[in-house]
């Protein structure tokens, strides 16, 4: 399957993916882009041009919190973690995404 770029990602989907990755534990921007690629088996590739603005937007909304800390190689990096507010937001978005994808799947099946 060819990788899906930024423009193909549905609006709001990137936010949800980021929240999900960060929910697994504190992580820096580079780590997030790596994990999205690995977990999606190279299907989703996030451009830095959209990743970082999204991170900062989520931080401003209070869904993510961030601290500067040392990476495993001893470099200064900005680590993001999920706030309580972000955890609720993620739950909501996951639920509505599942509803949507189920509905879309139903329609696609009926069209066959």
């Amino acid at each position, binding site marked *: 399957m060819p990788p899906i770029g930024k423009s193909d990602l549905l609006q709001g989907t990137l936010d949800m993916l980021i929240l999900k990755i960060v929910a697994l534990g504190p992580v*820096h*921007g*580079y780590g997030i*882009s790596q994990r999205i690629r690995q977990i999606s088996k190279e299907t989703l590739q996030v*451009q*830095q*041009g959209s990743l*970082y*603005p999204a991170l*900062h*937007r989520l931080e*401003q909304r209070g869904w993510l919190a961030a601290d*500067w800390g040392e*990476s495993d*190689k001893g*470099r*200064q*990096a*900005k680590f993001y973690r999920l706030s309580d507010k972000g955890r609720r937001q993620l739950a909501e978005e996951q639920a509505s995404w599942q509803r949507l994808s189920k509905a879309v799947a139903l329609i696609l099946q009926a069209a066959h």
Partner: protein
Amino acid sequence: MFFDRNARKKKFDDRGFESEIRFHLQELIDTHLAAGMSPEDARRQALLEFGGQEQVKQQLRDVHTPAFLHTTKTNLRAAFRLMRRSPSFALAVTLTLALGIGANSAVFSAMDAVLLRPLPFPQSAQLVSLHQYNFKDKSPESELAPVRLEDWNRLNSSFQAITGYFTADVSESSGVLPEKLTVAMTAPRFLEVWGVGPELGRGFAPEEERFAGPHAMLISNRFWRRRFHADPAAVGKTLRIDALSYTIVGVMPQSFAFPDRDVDLWVPSPADAPQAQSRESTWFHTQGRLKPGVTLAEARADLALVQKQLGQQYPKTDADLAAEIQPLKQEIVGDSGRSLRLLFGSVSLLLLIACMNIAALLLARATSREQEIGIRFSLGASRSAILSQLLTETFVLALAGSILGLILAAEASRFFALFTKDLPRVEEITLNWRIVVYALACALVTTLASGLFPALRATRRGLRHSLSRSSYTQVAGRNPLHWTLIGIQIALAVTLLIGAGLLLRSFQAMGRVDPGFEAAHILTLRISASWAETADMKKVTQRIDRTLAALRAVPGVEDAATAAFLPGVPARYQTELKTAEGPRDPNRKMTAEVRFVSTGYFSTMKIPVLHGQPCPGGSPYGTALVNRSFQNSYFADTEAVGHHLASASAVSIAPAAEIRGIAGDARDEGLNVAPVPTVYWCLSAPSPDPYYLIRVHGDPMAMADTLRRVIHGVEPSRSVYDVMPLEQHLTDAYAENRLRTLLLSFFACTAVALVSIGIYGTISYLGRVRRRELGLRLALGAIPSQIVTRFVGQSIRVAGFGCAAGVVLGFGMSRLLAGTLYGVSSIDAATYLGVLGLILTVTTLAALIPALRAVRLEPTCVLREE
């Protein structure tokens, strides 16, 4: 401050962004190195993968920009786009507001300078002006005797200090030609009261304020620049004033212009001088500085006590006198405050009309933008977002309007300075930050006043209707809102028109009035003299008589005279009189205006002498004439001639005099004042420097140089000044009146123009909106004239309501004007009918043209358009 903090925060943010990006790049490089790339390749590959760093940074900055800044930017961009798209609309709104805000800011700048700002002295609220007056004969408040000023200063407990001054015109003769200078003779403590020190040099030393002490003077900044080219070495130089030498001890700062801008020198008037010891000579315009925390009422009570004490001590001169105190600012501003408030009120009405006008325009536009707004709603914009965008559009226009308006206001302040020389503090009218803030506040207020309601209305329907209905299919809506706005505009315009009409009629009446004297062909001038000469009044009288004789001998001069007051220029000098033959009517006081005139006055001014003789030549001490009103009021049953008059007050410069004749009634006290009982005291030298009135053949100014030379021949050491035709003085005296009339008329005309534009615009808009309906009606056989009649009838009906409301407001306006009107009642029927006629004609015309255009359409075309 705000920007500073903002910039610092930005820098801090940027550093954060950079470290974050750097970390990401390093991690990428590490990955590639681990995959076996050369360090250079790994680096290049990482940069390539990451993409534009600057772009990412910019995006992050955008994320961190506060939301309201972001939307403001977008809204502003949209507003400018809109201005580009419909420039004529933008221009109309901007110009209307420029006129409204400009006129408003201009009048505000004058009001601010004259009324609102404190006087330009430290703690100026403590400064008061003091007068003595005779409470028995109700003579006007007058200047203070030097000894009494010293008494008041010594005995009171509520003033820091009391001082005074009088001005005199003197000749300075150390230059090539004698130059006329204005000197203020100051009582002790002058600088102390003003709280201002010399910019250069020093104030007066105690011995310089004593009689026969060294002659010292302070000079004005203006004189210093003119005469000494701002040379600091001027201090210590001497000038020859009249016959004496004075040493310059200091230069006052430029900001100090008291009593006015024309003063060149300040010279101490010693309190211990022999001629200053009379309790009856009233010299000083008196000012005082209150102690901190002392109120006006406390100071009044204190001085009343002081004067009562003096009354017991000097019963002959002081028993009937009382002290009057008022804030100095109030005295300086005088009647101008009323004029300015009136103008400010009018100009605010004008701005209100402009707002209504723009509100109507915006309402009409909002209708044609319904679809655009509907689309934005359906795309998820919130109501407040659309509202703020609409208001931003209006605000941008208002801002443009107020910037243009400020330019107008700056020009206007020059206009004020040019046309109202007599307006107090006119030199302080400038464009400053207060005016700028005021204009910006105006922009904000007009935005809300004219934009908020249309914007609320435009966004009210939201998604439900706009998309489903095209505004072009609208049928005869009643549009009450438009008509209400028009009605209010008409009401306000009628109010302004009534005010302007009354002032115009009053001005006209004043031009028609017969003053009882002939002002044409009269040249007026003054000759410098010093009040020190009053020590020998006989000599002064001889000098003036000699000058008059020389003037009369000039070919081309018909006659010449002196007078203490210029005829026709408002000046009151009311005095209670008594007759030596005993009171005429014990129950009635005899009061009259007193004029001092020389022999030849009546023939010079062409005031007829009805009975008896005019003022005799020689030294006519002890003779007087009265006018017909005086004869009729106080000697109705007998002949006034032969009676002896004297001032009822002990303090008066008018000696007892025999009535020698009756003169015709003349408007000596002001063109706008009906003749009152008047006594003409025959006295050629009521003061050392009376006005000379010279009747010439032909143009008065053409004779000016000849007469100057003649006077120089008789009095070589004196300078001649204030050379001007009497008619010019009369024009100047009513300059403020004329300016007020002119401005109010201009405002009223602008208001009418705005109203007709408003009506025209509304009917055009209705015609456009109802195009399809009208086409259908015409196709079905409606007669165009009926449709036109309906449109015009509607606007006349609204005009009727507007006029009714306007007349009610106009009554209020005319009440305000009542005191300033002359020869016309404040409910003058002609004015009211004229205004109503004008408004109805204008509204009919303004409605007729677009109505005719609306029905001139081809029904088939319109119906095919859909």
